[in-house]
């Protein structure tokens, strides 16, 4: 929480004035019982009607001042709370943007999204409430006690005993029930998981005729949840009756002591009434305070979660200075490259050595988990190699400024991700100022022209968020076009034709080959057919390059490649 407070500094004025006006309001509220007691002791006792009217007007005036003060306070509190969260949110967004793939992998995007949305709202509520009530409620509780002291020390002792007793009950019940609520939450999670599972696995569950036993298990979990809820409910049901008893017994004691003090001439009747009024004010505030503490604890936990993201620093630093490239060097060189992911035990890539000449087409093939994607991710420096170095145009990728490196590379990731907006908007991610012709060229090469033209509006047709209104194959072709618009030096296709049928895949590869001959193309695939005509094929197995060469060479001397190839093209068909 502490670190987040930095973002409060623009709202210093508001966060001081807010509580201050609240205190002012509370002070006026505390005066009301005194006025009432004056009406009784002076007004009624002396039958002084003008005095009574005057005092009542004073009460109304106190009310008006209170209203003005508290509206002012609400305004400052709201302004500070909303402004503060807006600042934190923006900073958090920027921070997340600065994180590298390694941090994104460890944290997971769904957590980050909840942090930015629901956690942030909780914090906003918390800050707002704190500014409004955190000073006010204790102030009224203790203020009422102090006012009681000014009236009569002996009667005030009743307050001294009551307030701690009440606090113990209110906060005790909370302390006991809060961990129990966590258990309730866990029970709810179980019920949720079972429900979700039964939806996602509906075919399997029905295929195995498991409906009845699932219902039984659900009922069991549901019943446990109910039992827990009732138990917690019974405990918190105690709070109201107990506080009621304490406050009212205290009132009785107050009346009894008051009676003796009046008898002794120390107090008047009106003052006894004032004391009783103070007692009931305390009850109201304590209940508010308890609610406040719950909200604040929640907000606190959320704030800590948000802060833990700020604590996560990017593990990659980029130089600012652009670098001089070596014009005669190979476009990509791997020197003894090894990669171990954070928190992973074993190496995902080990001891890779190869060079790619400008304009070559290189195929990368291997089974799942062989390290194909890991390999290509090192080139745009999504991850840093943990051993050896990766060179692009003769320069270590770690010496490039981020933009200089990534502008060279067009990458088409495995998962075809598109964004809400028009098709043209999506393509311009590759190059902001691309002309219409450039966009159409890219679409033509990626075999997307036909279906894009068929859509209403052509390249101005809207794409839904995540490209939901397009088929998998269409999405893949658009992501390829997006990378092509950039006219990259290096084009990386990471298994990005998997949703295309073989014929389209073949046409696509042909079109890419006919582009600018200086473009270096890396194709990652599970299909031998997709890469068999590449200039160079890298065969990966368990993170190691077990074969590098052309199709013919590998077919002769690389057993892993043979295994893959013949599983897809049985020998007899070859003949």
């Amino acid at each position, binding site marked *: 929480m502490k670190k987040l407070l930095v973002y409060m500094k623009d709202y210093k004025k508001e966060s001081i004035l807010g509580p201050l006006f609240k205190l002012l309001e509370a002070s006026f509220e505390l005066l009301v019982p005194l006025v009432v007691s004056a009406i009784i002791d002076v007004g009624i006792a002396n039958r002084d009607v003008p005095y009574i*009217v005057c005092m009542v007007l004073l009460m109304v005036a106190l009310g008006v001042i209170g209203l003005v003060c508290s509206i002012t306070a609400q305004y400052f509190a709201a302004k500070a709370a909303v402004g503060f969260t807006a600042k934190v949110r923006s900073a958090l967004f920027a921070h997340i*943007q600065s994180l590298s793939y390694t941090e994104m992998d460890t944290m997971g995007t769904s957590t980050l999204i909840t942090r930015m949305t629901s956690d942030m709202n909780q914090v906003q509520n918390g800050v707002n409430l704190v500014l409004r009530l955190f000073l006010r409620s204790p102030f009224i509780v203790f203020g009422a006690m102090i006012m009681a002291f000014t009236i009569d020390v002996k009667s005030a002792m009743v307050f001294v005993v009551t307030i701690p007793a009440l606090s113990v009950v209110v906060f005790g019940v909370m302390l006991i029930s809060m961990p129990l609520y966590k258990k309730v939450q866990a029970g709810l999670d179980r019920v949720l*998981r079972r*429900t979700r599972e039964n939806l996602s696995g509906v075919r399997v569950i029905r295929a195995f005729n498991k409906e009845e036993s699932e219902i039984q298990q*659900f009922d069991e979990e549901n019943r446990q949840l109910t039992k827990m809820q*009732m138990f917690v409910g019974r405990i918190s049901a105690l709070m109201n009756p107990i506080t009621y008893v304490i406050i009212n017994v205290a009132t009785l004691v107050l009346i009894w002591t008051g*009676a003796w003090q009046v008898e002794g001439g120390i107090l008047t009747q009106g003052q006894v*009434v004032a004391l009783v009024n103070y007692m009931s004010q305390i009850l109201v505030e304590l209940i508010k305070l308890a609610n406040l503490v719950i909200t604040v604890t929640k907000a606190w936990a959320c704030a800590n979660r948000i802060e833990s993201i700020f604590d996560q620093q990017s593990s990659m630093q980029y130089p600012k200075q652009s670098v001089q490239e070596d014009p005669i060097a190979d476009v990509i060189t791997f020197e003894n490259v090894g990669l171990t992911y954070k928190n992973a035990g074993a190496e995902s890539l080990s001891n890779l050595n190869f060079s790619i000449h400008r304009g070559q087409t290189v195929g990368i093939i291997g*089974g799942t988990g062989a390290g194909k994607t890991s390999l290509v991710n090192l080139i745009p420096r999504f991850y840093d190699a943990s051993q050896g170095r990766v060179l692009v145009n003769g320069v270590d990728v770690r010496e490039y400024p981020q933009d200089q490196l990534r502008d060279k590379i067009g990458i088409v990731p495995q998962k075809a991700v598109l964004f809400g907006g028009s098709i043209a908007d999506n393509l311009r991610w590759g190059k902001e100022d691309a002309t219409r012709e450039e966009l159409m060229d890219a679409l033509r090469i990626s075999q997307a022209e036909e279906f894009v033209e068929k859509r209403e509006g052509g390249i101005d047709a809207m794409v839904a968020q995540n490209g939901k209104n397009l088929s998998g194959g269409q999405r893949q072709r658009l992501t390829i076009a997006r990378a092509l618009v950039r006219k990259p030096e290096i084009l990386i296709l990471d298994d990005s034709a998997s949703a295309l049928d073989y014929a389209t895949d073949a046409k696509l590869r042909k079109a890419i080959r006919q582009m600018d001959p200086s473009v270096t193309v890396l194709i990652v695939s599970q299909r031998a057919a997709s890469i068999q005509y590449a200039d160079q094929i890298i065969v990966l197995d368990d993170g190691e390059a077990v074969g590098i060469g052309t199709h013919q060479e590998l077919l002769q001397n690389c057993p892993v490649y043979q295994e893959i190839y013949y599983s897809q093209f049985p020998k007899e068909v070859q003949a």
Partner: protein
Amino acid sequence: MQTHNNGETMRKVLRHIRKYWFYFILSLLFAAVTVTLTLYLPILIGEAVDLILAPGQVDFEGIWSLLLIMGVMIGGTALSQWIMNVCNNKITYNTIQDIREEAFRKIENLPLKYIDSHSYGEVVSRVIADVDQFADGLLMGFTQFFTGVLTIVGTLIFMLTMNVGITLVVVVITPVSLFVASFIAKKTYTMFQLQSSTRGEQTGLIDEMIGNQKVVAAFGYQEKAQKRFDEVNERLRQCSLRAIFFSSITNPATRFVNSLVYAGVGVAGALSAVAGGISVGQLTSFLSYANQYTKPFNEISGVVTELQNALACAARIFELIEEEPQTPEPPDVVELTDLDGSVALEHVYFSYAPEQKLIEDFNLEVKPGSRIAIVGPTGCGKTTVINLLMRFYDVNQGCIRVSGTDIRKMTRHSLRAGYGMVLQETWLKSGTIRENIIMGKPDATEEEIVAAAKASHAHSFIKRLPQGYDTIITEEGGGLSQGQKQLLCITRVMLCLPPMLILDEATSSIDTRTEIKIQEAFARLMEGRTSFIVAHRLSTIREADVILVMRDGKIIEQGDHETLLQKNGFYAQLYNSQFSA
């Protein structure tokens, strides 16, 4: 219309509560007791104050007996309040337990059509979040609505018995607070709507940009993303500020009205006390009534919104519960246990939506033990065939027979027990490996389990897991590779060995070695069994007795490999495209 629907929902809620009528009456009874006692207390306090006049004029004996009475009353109030709370808890939590059970039973009995066309999140949120919200509203409604109404009525009666004039003052001024509150609520409604739509917009952007942060980084879009975010963020800040500030005026404003009531009672009461109409003690009681009387109004207006919200949630839950279930089984349904493995599709018509025809007049005769390969490009609708065979969906016309019996005339249970299904989208339930394997045969012995696992090449990797067969796997089978998950699913079928199989061959996501193992396991499974295979491998396709070629959801060609090649249609095209670059 809205109120009519609310009334309808309310009736349904009441029908669920009826089971707990005893607690309901008890709760009402004790609510009445609580309110009466709570309201009577200020009167006694007032009386006690009247006994404390001035030095020498204090009636200690009178005060003491009043205090005793009050003490007993306080105890009684607390007790009845507690009983009321406990009753309300019982009603609420039992009701929602019933509703949840009902909802889950419905889920198990919904047609697949419903489940396929609704996102899981939506259904889950009905069963979890909506029910929860409903419970909160119900509980609050019980505890605050009744006591609130009773308090208002009770206070009025008590005040009227003491002094009509002062009561009128209270009655006239109080509605002002209600008016103010509803005025503010109405004014802020649009502000809140704007806030939530802006918030939705922002969440969408966050979801898109953070969810795909890797792509954003790859294309250097960070700065633009930040710019877009800050723009929405600023708008959100402004409209949140407005919504929060204006709605937060409600509290001080109603409190101000309360203080007006208080002042009104003060002046009216004091004046009539001067005239000798009421005593100082009675004035005290009046003042505390003035406080108590206005509070429930504010609470009730809060409860009403909460209750409306709860009813909206309830309506969503009932919508799920009342959803049309799958076709019930007819009374003359048979339980077939000895299926021979023959399947016949006769003049089958099927489509998901009437306007888009998929399968028309489809005929197929499958002899026991034969192999049917289903072939076609991705997304061609191969699952449709599975949906029909397993009766996840019913045919629109024609019929499907298994062992000569129309599958609609046999129990779903016996039909599905006849099939073993291994899909490419493997699904494992959270639980131990063992629990997952014995799904089809809960009483399997340890030997049978291990034998099945060995036969499907799963034993060796299971053995290497931390707790072997008792290793707990999480939802979506986390921790296992795709290939291992598929092997587990095969083991599951291997254990019960049904006469018919539906298999889905792996495409690209499995490495070659595991794939070979899966192939071997499949081959062992298929020995002597009727099998439907969604096929990708040439060898499987060539060995099939019948190949069904699908495209765009329709079955366009049917026959064996040679016939289809000669036909030189879509199959031939598909086959050739795989082997020409």
